[in-house]
């Protein structure tokens, strides 16, 4: 299939539809409203359901119901809207329901601004809701990668019976890039025999997260913990850039920020500074072992984010105190330029 020039938000929506994500519930918010607008017109064509819901609080719970009834349900929003879903996402994780949540991040905290940011890393990765739960988190760096990740997100959501978050900054959602929709194959999924579809010929199914008996509740907590450990074993994804040649500096960045870092690495090479990049594609599970391994070959690590420093904690966790880990961040909708990253590297380069 030929490449088409498509806006990130619309490409994500189309990819989801092709992956069978035929129930979409959402509430408008910049910079991702085009997802809903595209689906409002697309869903009827494919016999799917587009429904605008009154609030993000409600959206999370509509997802819970639809997922509990066995559907491939999903939503999209942006930072403040995602915050309103925290109770609902915690319920979804606790009831082990599959769904996909796209967060086209804008800057915060508060109303903040509508420009690109990576300030929701902690919320997505550590679980912004209450209790012990985790979401599987994908962070695409281009419109094409976003398109490729959507089917994967739905598959993993069903496989693990867990909410999956696809996190991209405002640029991923707003920009047009050439994309191609490729068919993807996945191993068959177990039947959703737990779904509430009417108890014809079987015992009633119950979707629930309340366990008053601590012994049973603890079992659930440990079961979930084991599931997240399994994800750490199976689902880690990342991209390496220039790690095959020798380097003194290891950059760690995700999403569009990683693109900036790639250009910066080329510039640095011109100036005789050898740098490499590790780009986490999954933010949870985090590629910590890989980062530790790559870090050992570098003199120092520079973590670049569109935030005042969030992923850097996971990078530090990975590296331990074995190598210095520095940070360069822009915030408020400012996007780090390759020049700035070059300068940041040189600054610490000077130090050593």
């Amino acid at each position: 299939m030929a490449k088409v020039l498509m806006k990130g938000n619309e490409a994500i929506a189309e990819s989801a539809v092709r992956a069978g994500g035929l129930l979409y519930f959402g509430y408008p918010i910049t910079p991702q409203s085009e997802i809903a607008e595209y689906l409002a017109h697309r869903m009827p064509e494919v016999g799917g359901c587009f429904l605008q819901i009154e609030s993000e609080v409600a959206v999370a719970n509509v997802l819970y119901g639809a997922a509990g009834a066995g559907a491939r349900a999903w939503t999209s929003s942006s930072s403040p809207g995602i915050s309103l879903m925290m109770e609902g996402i915690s319920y979804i994780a606790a009831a082990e329901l599959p769904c996909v949540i796209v967060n086209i991040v804008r800057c915060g905290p508060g109303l903040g601004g509508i420009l690109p940011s990576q300030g929701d890393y902690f919320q997505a990765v550590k679980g912004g809701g209450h209790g012990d739960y985790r979401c599987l988190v994908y962070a695409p760096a281009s419109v094409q990668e976003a398109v490729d990740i959507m089917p994967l997100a739905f598959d993993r959501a069903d496989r693990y019976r867990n909410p999956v978050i696809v996190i991209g900054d405002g640029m991923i959602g707003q920009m047009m890039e050439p994309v191609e929709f490729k068919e993807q194959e996945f191993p068959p999924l177990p039947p959703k025999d737990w779904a509430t579809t009417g108890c014809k010929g079987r015992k009633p199914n119950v979707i629930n997260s309340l366990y008053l008996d601590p012994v049973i509740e603890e079992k659930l907590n440990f079961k979930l913990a084991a599931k997240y450990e399994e994800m750490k074993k199976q689902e880690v994804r990342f991209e390496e850039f220039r790690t095959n040649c020798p380097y003194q500096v290891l950059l760690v960045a995700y999403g569009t920020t990683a693109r900036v870092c790639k250009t910066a690495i080329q510039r640095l090479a011109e100036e005789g500074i050898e740098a490499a990049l590790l780009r986490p594609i999954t933010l949870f599970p985090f590629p910590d072992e890989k980062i530790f391994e790559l870090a050992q070959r570098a003199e120092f690590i520079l973590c670049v984010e569109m935030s005042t420093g969030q992923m850097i904690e996971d990078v530090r966790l990975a590296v331990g105190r074995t190598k210095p880990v520095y940070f360069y961040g822009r915030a408020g909708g400012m996007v780090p330029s390759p020049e700035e990253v070059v300068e940041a590297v040189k600054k610490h380069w000077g130090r050593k």
Partner: protein
Amino acid sequence: MRNAELRTGKKMQIEIVFAGFGGQGVLLAGKVLAEVGMKLDKEVVWLPSYGPEMRGGTANCTVIISDEPIASPIIAHPRDTVVMNRPSLEKFCPTQRPGGFTIVNTSLINIRPERNDITVVEVPANEIAIEAGTGRAANMVMLGAYVGATKIVPLEEVIEQIKEEFEDRPKVIPVNIKCLEQGFKIGQQSAGSR
């Protein structure tokens, strides 16, 4: 040679900001250019301004055409600008890199950029468009002028793309192409006449 000025060094990357009132079709003009770039196997990115800015009634988009993968789609200092109203000129012209092009819609802009390090192309886009049959095609006049001045892509490709864009409204194709060509001439001349 202009490429020498380019930020990315060896390889070429050009960034253009199309700006004007909402409704003047600047986003479409930019999209047409990006589509053409893609079909010429360039790396392209099209990024619109988004959010409350629209509330002033103004709109703009950035188009990047490059030989190498494009890093940051947010451009602080574009090389070229295509401005269709005064606020746009005032906002974006000062941000341009030296050596770039500025296409000015003189029909609606009664001032000129106060810079001598850029090539300014003056186009009475609305008049031309109205003459050609519809004021709504002024954006194509501007696009034509830009292509004519910079030669960034072949005119033929743009014409093809316009045909594609308006597939479902075939009768508006001729006037849009006419406007494009008119603008192209002006662009060629004034760029040549330097």
